């Protein structure tokens, strides 16, 4: 199977912002052999390094787009840009959407890129995931696992 990397992005201390990291943690012991799972912050060169050489990339981050908490957004970024407005990209940091575009411009983006955004309900400091987001995490973990297993099977 081609090298696949799964990256969960987020901050454990900021409520639902931890969703991406939670997905990564739940996936890590369960993914098929050859799939690498990484928890990461948004530092652009660190992200690019984490997916260096991968054929296929799955990124999971929290989004704040106004949809109901727990809503799952899915983008195929291998071909076209992810909406920068959905993925927090602020004047304070280079966000995921910008990093993807930067990597694309530099020729450092894997061929297949799927980006999952979990709509957050609360960014309250020190709080656990809200129930809606927790369900979304459970659902996404199952969905991603099924997807990864299918790819492994078809690659055999």
């Amino acid at each position: 199977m081609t090298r696949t990397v799964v990256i969960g992005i987020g901050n454990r201390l900021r409520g639902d912002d931890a969703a991406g990291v939670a997905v990564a943690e739940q996936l890590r012991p369960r993914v098929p052999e050859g799939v690498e799972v990484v928890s990461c912050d948004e530092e652009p060169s660190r992200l690019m390094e984490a997916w260096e050489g991968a054929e296929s990339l799955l990124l999971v981050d929290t989004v704040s787009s106004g949809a109901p908490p727990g809503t799952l957004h899915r983008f195929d970024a291998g071909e076209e840009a992810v909406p920068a407005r959905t993925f927090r990209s602020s004047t304070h940091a280079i966000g995921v959407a910008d990093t993807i575009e930067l990597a694309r411009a530099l020729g450092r983006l894997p061929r297949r890129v799927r980006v999952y955004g979990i709509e957050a309900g609360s960014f309250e400091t020190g709080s656990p995931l809200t129930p809606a987001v927790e369900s979304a995490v459970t659902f996404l973990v199952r969905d991603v696992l099924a997807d990864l297993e299918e790819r492994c099977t078809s690659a055999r």
Partner: protein
Amino acid sequence: MSKRRTIVTDYLARVEGEGAMTVQLDGDRVEHVELRIFEPPRFFEAFLRGRSFLEAPDITARICGICPVAYQTSSINAMESLCGVVVPEPIRMLRRLLYCGEWIESHALHIYMLHAPDFLGYESAIELARDASQAVERGLALKRTGNDLMTLLGGREIHPINVRVGGFYRVPSRRELRALVEPLELAREAALETVRWTAGFDFPERVVDCDLLALDQPGEYAIERGRIRSSAGLDLAPAEYDEHFEELHVERSNALQSQLRGGGTYLCGPLARYSLGAARLSPLAREAAAEIGLGNECRDPFRSIVVRSVELVHACDESLRLIEAYEDPERPAEPVEPVAGTGYGVSEAPRGLLYHRYRLDGDGTILEAKIVPPTSQNQLAIEDDLRDVVARNTSLDDEVLRQLCEQTIRNYDPCISCATHFLDLQVDRK
């Protein structure tokens, strides 16, 4: 007949934090120029009241994700000077090394991601990367090396957790530090390349004539300590700062604006540091500056990108020197007993002088805190410069003029979120 024009940028891009700009022109006459700072107030000085003096570095680090080390260092300097503690040389060197990491990371970010696109006619670093991937890769690698240095010494790259009043929680071994030598040597080469690259940009000829203000430390390019010096001849201990500078509130800004008491604009940051201290840069950094004909003084805000590049060479070079000379301290931190009174601390954040003042009671509780970040100090100078740039370029059409104005602001690498304050009841007025 005169024609009235208003040029507005509602949301300044490629600066840290949330700000806007308005320029009003009546024909060739500049009626009004303002840099509005609408980043919400931060309340940090109030948070600090009632907390232990030992917590100040960790609390104030949160003011900025780009220059947390500056906040930690200025607060530590204030506490240690009040409590009569002078840390041993290895601890001071580690602090300077950590601070160099922050300079490398912050300068690389500003030069490559935020500022260079202005000179080369791109909307963003992403567009720049399509045409100049090698340069952008160089910038990312430089930034990464700065981040790695901060991670090793600070425990993590943003908001370091390993820094404390009196020293560090854990100090690195010589072996750990030596692992950074090779990346830093590469970074130093990349920084030299950065100087040549930015020196080749087109610059409108500009000179600002306000007072320049920077720290001064015999024998070194001042970063983590020093006396406050100005081009007009001020030479102050940090404790004398408040006698000479005041902060004013203006309605358009959630940041306070600093000025010399009784009026007078001044500028801090790379141009001031370089113009007052170029002779103390490392030989390699001086050589790099000479090679591109930079001279011993630079008062051109557009060329701040070149000066930042020279400082990048210095920060890499200095990091290597510090690692080479490092010897393990006897212990990671000196004990610090609180003393009632007022402590003052300064350091050179990447974008300029950062002043802290704390009043403590006898058990170390903070009774009062005052923080004056570089962007507050530079805000008046930025507006003066903006006014003058507009006045000299009234013939440009609105869009070109707007871009020039934005570039003028970015010349100062403003860190807007650092500068916001809570201002009585006037903040939320509509």
